[in-house]
């Protein structure tokens, strides 16, 4: 199986779906001539032309709304947000329009549209450019929300998202674009709404999604050396959540640590922690722990910004807590 980057996986997904369905087009800032701010759309403009790879002015609310209107009328736009930080400009369009249109029209409209871009902190970007905003979208009924962590999942989920008849918000990460992984040559899809066990274990369940999955895996490896068998469950989809997979894994281990790089209050992680406490109440051997971003805006200083984010060490500490090992 060829090993490719997360960026290439996204590019393949968009390319294949544009080739497959001429209603699919890519719209956003710098997606065409510049080949994408993070080069996700490299080569697509040359291949499909300006009609289907559309550069916009810097006008997130505007082009997001245009995408939604086009989707209502039957096209299948892929809207690229240069980063999720700028998606806040378009929050009204996504929450008031995309998520609500089908419901308030009594089921008259389909909204086959994907909103995608990098989410969460990178490095040295400070408060406005380093935000993990999953909760904003996962909170809203009428949306589907996905957050793949590997090239395989990125490609398979993006293809599913483009083929879905509902608005899908897909959160990538700047620090994931260069990561590599095996991606088959043959066509495949990853279903929305299905979690994936990235590492099997019996003593504790680590539940996570997105970029920090890799921290969870490395924490699990450290723990293995200490004789602790950690299972790593990658949610992949935040809305809908794969509750069955969550409960099944915790039923096996009886202990749970949730890892979410977002701020902790009212986050996806805190919701999952509630879900586990509620559904697995009888079988938990310890309280559910949440390893989240600290409850502060992101500072610029590197030492400080690292302190804000989850780390393998923080995860190991939390695991030891639920194992009563410290």
């Amino acid at each position: 199986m060829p090993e490719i980057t997360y960026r290439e996986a996204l590019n393949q997904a968009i390319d294949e779906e544009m080739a497959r369905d001429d209603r699919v087009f890519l719209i956003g800032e710098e997606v065409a001539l510049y080949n994408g701010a993070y080069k996700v759309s490299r080569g697509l403009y040359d291949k499909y032309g300006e009609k289907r790879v559309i550069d916009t002015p810097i006008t997130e609310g505007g082009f997001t709304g245009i995408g939604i209107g086009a989707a209502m009328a039957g096209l299948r736009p892929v809207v690229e947000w240069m980063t999720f930080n700028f998606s806040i400009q378009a929050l009204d369009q996504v929450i008031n329009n995309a998520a609500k249109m089908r419901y308030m029209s009594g089921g008259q409209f389909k909204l086959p549209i994907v909103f995608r871009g990098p989410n969460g902190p990178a490095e040295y970007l400070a408060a406005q450019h380093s935000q993990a905003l999953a909760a904003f979208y996962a909170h809203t009924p009428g949306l589907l929300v996905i957050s793949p962590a590997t090239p395989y999942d990125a490609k398979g989920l993006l293809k599913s998202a483009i083929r879905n008849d509902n608005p899908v918000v897909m959160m990538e990460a700047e620090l994931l674009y260069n990561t590599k992984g095996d991606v088959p040559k043959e066509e495949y899809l990853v279903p929305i709404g299905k979690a994936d066990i990235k590492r099997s274990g019996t003593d504790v369940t680590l539940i996570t999604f997105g970029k920090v999955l890799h921290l969870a895996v490395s924490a699990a490896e450290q723990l293995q050396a200490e004789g602790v068998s950690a299972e790593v469950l990658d949610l992949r989809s935040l809305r809908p959540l794969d509750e069955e997979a969550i409960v099944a894994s915790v039923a096996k281990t009886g202990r749970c640590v949730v890892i979410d790089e977002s701020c902790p209050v009212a986050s996806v992680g805190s919701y999952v922690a509630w879900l586990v406490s509620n559904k697995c109440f009888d079988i938990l051997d310890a309280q559910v722990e949440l390893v989240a971003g600290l409850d502060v805006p992101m500072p610029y200083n590197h030492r400080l910004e690292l302190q804000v984010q989850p780390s393998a060490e923080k995860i190991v500490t939390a695991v030891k807590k639920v194992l009563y090992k410290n």
Partner: protein
Amino acid sequence: MAENIPMLALSPTMEEGVIVKWIKHQGDIVAQGDILCEVETDKAVMEYESPAEGTLLRITAAQGQSIAIGETIAVIGAQDEQIETPQKPKQQEVLTEEVPRKNIPQPPKTSMPPLATAKLRSSPLARKLAELHGLDISSVKGTGPEGRVIEADVKQAIPKTPAATPPLSRPDDEVIEITPKRKLIAKTLAGSKFTSPHYYLKVNVIADSLIATRQKHNAESDHKISLNAFLIKFVAEVMQRHPVINSSWQDDKIVQHRTCDIALAVSQPDGLIAPVVRQCHTKSLTQIDSELKALVEKTHAGSLTSADYANSTFTISNLGSFGIDEFTAIINPPNSAILAVGKISKQPVVGDDEKIQIHQCMALTLSCDHRLIDGAIGAIFLTDLKEMIENPRQ
């Protein structure tokens, strides 16, 4: 066709509106949008615009009248149109009317998947409690959701020292509702017994002289005097010398009474009551007896008022007529003591000369509230009373 013009909600919160003034009058031609009248809502005076055009055939709501939303205030139609008396508005269908709730729908995926585990469902608190009592939690039957063992289950399972308390009721028991009177008795006497520290003093009194005196008096007079009247009189007399007995404990003070109001416990089918003979220390035996008779009659007739039984300063309970030898009584608040009187019976008495003689005897038991009456005080009162009964003066 004529149109009924209804009162409208002209503010979001109003329930009815008052017609402040009719701008248009019966017979006027009105156009749509013309101001028909002014309506005072709960917030402000608003103009009511005509929703119809034609002739204002009838005004059905007078100036100053308050009209509920939906009720007709006027009728507009063609000039010569015959109109019926406006009907009551149709019963308004409420917007929030509920569709019968058969199945409350569930969001698509919140069902709890079965746990693939043999582990027992139990709450952390239940587990902790079981551990504390050395109980194997798997032996406890759970009553929580899906058989979860909860705190109450563990508490139930903790072995108890065999309880002596019999079951409170049996299947064939009759359950009787408590009457207000019984409730009051229960409250008063429980309050007395549990807050006044009782102690008891008993003497055996030779009643030969008392009986003789009474017989003599009753033979000479038409007014037959009861034994209880004698006892009341004697107590009143002796109490003059022992004012502590005639006192009440009130919060952190002692109130010593100057008058001597003595109650006598009288049994009734629906419960005990104790009517009071007032000012006994000032009254003659005959007076006391007359009043007592009247009170007992009233008691049996059920016509006592609170003035007849409230606020005694001392109480006598006599169960002699029931054949009781001796007993202890509970102090009747706000009293500080009560005298329990047993039956008069012939008894052998060892005299000072060490010879046994037969006398008419009677046991007296005094219950005292130790907060006011120390043992010695109670004892002196009781022996003085004994002395008076055994040697009654006229």
